[in-house]
């Protein structure tokens, strides 16, 4: 498919604005010549109809949840209700300026305040901020709070290490490093859970905290979490909850009750705001009371007596700011609508059905695929190609072949503690029929891997392009269009 730049027809874009009626003498231009742009803007000219066709064609070369099941592990690709989209586009939300006087945006502030309150209750935390723009951004905010806390007690200088399990999302070690910490890895045991003995050996006076996902990335609940919490806190560290997998337990169990001091929540996972091809998301952060003074500015406050919402910027211990304004407000509107639609009881059903679907699919796949941890899982599980490998079929091949059946592949080659992992997270919004279809497709692929492995290795066949030469892309980076 041609690029925008290859479709340019000079003179074909007729979009114009009405000229304001300003007399020339009243408006002398004041930009000195040396500041004026001389270079071409480089924006291609297309007629409106051709531009519409271009982006429509692009959309047809993409695959979203609305196109079909998306069992991408740790990404919680659930169906997102359309009413949430409609709400975010209301002019009273989409066309308001962040610096308007608070009394002209009481509805927006109330929405954010109530969303914070709901998320605090659902996570068992005392205070919340919605400023982070994504999960990893929430991690950054949360770990800045951890660091600010240790600074406030005078312990920062010696506490320069953050513990991260070897099964963690890559963002956890990267976040710890981005906040200036050294990373020390904690091993998983043969059961896929944090190895308590290894944890004990890694704890010490230099540890600022532990970052943990629960359920973890192999889809198992860290059932020793209370012991882990006790050990980390006794060593003077704080416990950080990575909320990427909250969908498994929302309404059933809360990080705050497990002993976590700070957590982030991916609104674009658990709370059904769509991923938009990689963002925008939202990564609200919740903390226990003793960490609330460190939350980023401003904090939304409610004067109950007068029923007025205000923004408080006078927070001397705050970590400051991590994003302009108040976060991805439009995303928060969608999450707020989703929580209202479900109610807290409905959210519990979300977790229950997410877990039911994952266990059901696991059962359906277990006849033909190796399942390294075949116990009751939470919202996701890991399978591997171990039985297909003898015919030279890799996890990558299975994933690509699944595309031909109309499904997005699972997350592959993650978590790192499982060789050739395929991580499936069907989410609660897939029906039994769909799960049976996915299982049937996976079983067909298992058949093919035995009878015609070349077919699996050559997949996909139904897509607009075949397998990509990724090495070439990295060795000879072409990162923009240059006309020949």
């Amino acid at each position: 498919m041609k690029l925008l730049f290859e479709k340019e027809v000079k003179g074909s874009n007729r979009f114009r604005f009405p000229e304001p009626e300003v007399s020339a003498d009243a408006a002398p231009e004041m930009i000195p010549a040396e500041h004026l742009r001389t270079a071409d803007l480089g924006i291609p000219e297309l007629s409106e109809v051709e531009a519409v066709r271009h982006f429509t064609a692009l959309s047809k070369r993409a695959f979203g949840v609305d196109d079909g099941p998306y069992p991408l592990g740790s990404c919680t690709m659930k169906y997102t209700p359309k009413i949430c989209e409609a709400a975010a586009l209301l002019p009273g939300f989409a066309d308001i300026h962040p610096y308007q006087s608070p009394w002209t945006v009481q509805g927006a502030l109330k929405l954010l305040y109530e969303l914070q309150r709901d998320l605090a209750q659902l996570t068992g935390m005392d205070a919340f901020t919605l400023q982070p723009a994504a999960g990893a951004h929430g991690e950054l905010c949360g770990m800045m709070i951890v660091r600010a806390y240790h600074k406030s007690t005078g312990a920062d200088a010696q506490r320069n290490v953050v513990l991260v399990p070897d099964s963690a999302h890559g963002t956890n070690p990267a976040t710890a490093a981005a906040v200036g910490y050294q990373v020390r890895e904690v091993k998983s045991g043969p059961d896929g859970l944090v190895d308590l003995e290894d944890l004990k050996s890694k704890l010490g006076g230099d540890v600022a905290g532990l970052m943990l996902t629960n359920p973890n990335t192999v889809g198992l609940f860290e059932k020793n979490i209370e012991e882990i919490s006790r050990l980390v806190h006794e060593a003077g560290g704080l416990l950080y909850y990575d909320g990427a997998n909250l969908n498994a337990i929302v309404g059933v169990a809360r990080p705050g009750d497990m002993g976590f001091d700070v957590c982030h929540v991916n609104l674009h996972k658990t709370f059904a705001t769509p991923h938009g091809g990689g963002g925008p998301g939202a990564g609200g952060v919740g903390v226990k009371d003793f960490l609330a003074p460190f939350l980023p500015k401003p904090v939304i406050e409610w004067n109950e007596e007068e029923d007025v919402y205000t923004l408080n910027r006078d927070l001397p211990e705050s970590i400051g700011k991590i994003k302009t304004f108040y976060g991805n407000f439009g995303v928060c509107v969608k999450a707020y609508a989703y929580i209202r639609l479900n109610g807290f009881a409905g959210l519990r059903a979300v977790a229950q059905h997410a877990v039911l679907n994952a266990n059901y699919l696991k059962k359906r796949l277990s006849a033909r695929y190796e399942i390294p941890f075949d116990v009751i899982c939470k919202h996701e599980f890991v399978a591997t190609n171990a039985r297909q490998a003898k015919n030279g079929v890799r996890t990558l091949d299975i994933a690509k072949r699944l595309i031909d059946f109309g499904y997005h592949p699972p997350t592959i080659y993650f978590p790192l503690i499982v060789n050739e992992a395929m991580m499936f997270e069907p989410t609660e919004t897939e029906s039994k029929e769909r799960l049976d279809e996915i299982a049937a497709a996976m079983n067909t692929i298992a058949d093919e891997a035995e009878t015609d492995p070349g077919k699996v290795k050559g997949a996909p066949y139904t897509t607009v392009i075949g397998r990509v030469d990724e090495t070439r892309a990295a060795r000879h980076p072409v990162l923009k269009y240059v006309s020949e």
Partner: protein
Amino acid sequence: MQYTPNTESQAAEMLAELGLSSLGDLFTDIPESIRRKCVLDETPGETEPSVRARLEQLAQDNWSAGDAPVFLGAGCYDHYIPAAADYLLQRSEFATSYTPYQPEISQGILQGIFEYQTLICRLTGMAVANASLYCGGSALSSACRIAAETVKKRKILLPASLHPEYAEIVKSAGIAGFYETVEVPVAESASAGSPSGVIDLAAFESLLDSDVAAALIPYPNFYGALEPVGELVRLVRAKTNALVVMSVDPFSLAMLKSPGEWGADIAVGDAQSLGNRMSFGGPHLGFMAVTEKLLRKIPGRLVGQSVDDRGNRCFVLTLQAREQHIRREKANSNICSNQALCALATAMYLTFIGPAGLKQAAAISHKLTCYAQEKFRRAGFKIRYTAPVFQEFAVCVDNPAEANEFLLENGIIGGYELPGALLFAFTEKRTAEEVDELVEAMSKYAFPAEKESAEGEEQE
């Protein structure tokens, strides 16, 4: 309303297949002591019409740009977005897809980002642009980290004319210890007896020593003014190895010299002004564009061109060895999700508005700004800063908060409150009549008695 498609009988069937009798049996691995503590308000879910009504009510409790003309800018602008861009952005293949890790079924997203990267490179005059960052402020703090690591120095020169929230984001990120910030003051203009509103060249020069990793140049700056970029860059190059980091409003680049033309090493900014609704401050998108030399330092996703096994040109996420999912703690940033859909919105906006449309929009904004300055001056107001501006300037007024309240009472969403001044922005959506109304209302507020001299309101 719930969105779980399985019926009760289907759920029972599935549970039976698992050898379980209830949904609760799926959670016995969570210690009872933890589950017991999870006590929630058992608020029931609401129907879709009820939720719509609730949200419409909340939305109505806000004054939107459709209710009153907006003269607020300060990093977020009320620009016109072509209907086609708004419409296409809602296609759910874009909205409901994940990061394009599977290129075979994600060419549309990947090509869209590649086109966005190209457009940002062209607008900024830089060699390489990434697929987006969270916001202009976080993009700037990422640039500071790059500078500190590249130049292997610690000092970041942070001008007082930078957006205060950007400055705060840069300072907050300083907790990681990669750099420290030093403030550069704004110059006093000797001739006019009032501040110029741009970086003090002498102070800037005196701060340029061998410890400097980066000099940040906002352009236009927070006060709407044009920094003496040429002089600043010459000084940096003459005295240090520091990187020049420009924080720009990309909309202004339709008229203003690009960071590439000025010789910047890194250009960052917020592309809200190119096709993203204000949305109470987000979602918007930060962008970053760098020189070829800094290609591997750029954080976040990058889309590159390659070929597939059938010989077709195609697009794929590339140079991932910089990123957290490959390098973990050695990654150059922890970013994962970015603002992809907002980047697509920017690509669509630029395409639909076209080069002539963008130039016209920028020209109208500037023309209205000049018109407003002149009107304010003629009405007896003092303009706070003397430097030339693009689409924003500050007007002196004793009590900015009170003035803003007065404007609201007159159906106008006023300016950003600076000490002793209001900062007004003028986009192409404003009209000459609206500007007249603004100046008139401000005059009514500042000079209530007709006989009063028109020169009174000049204190800071």
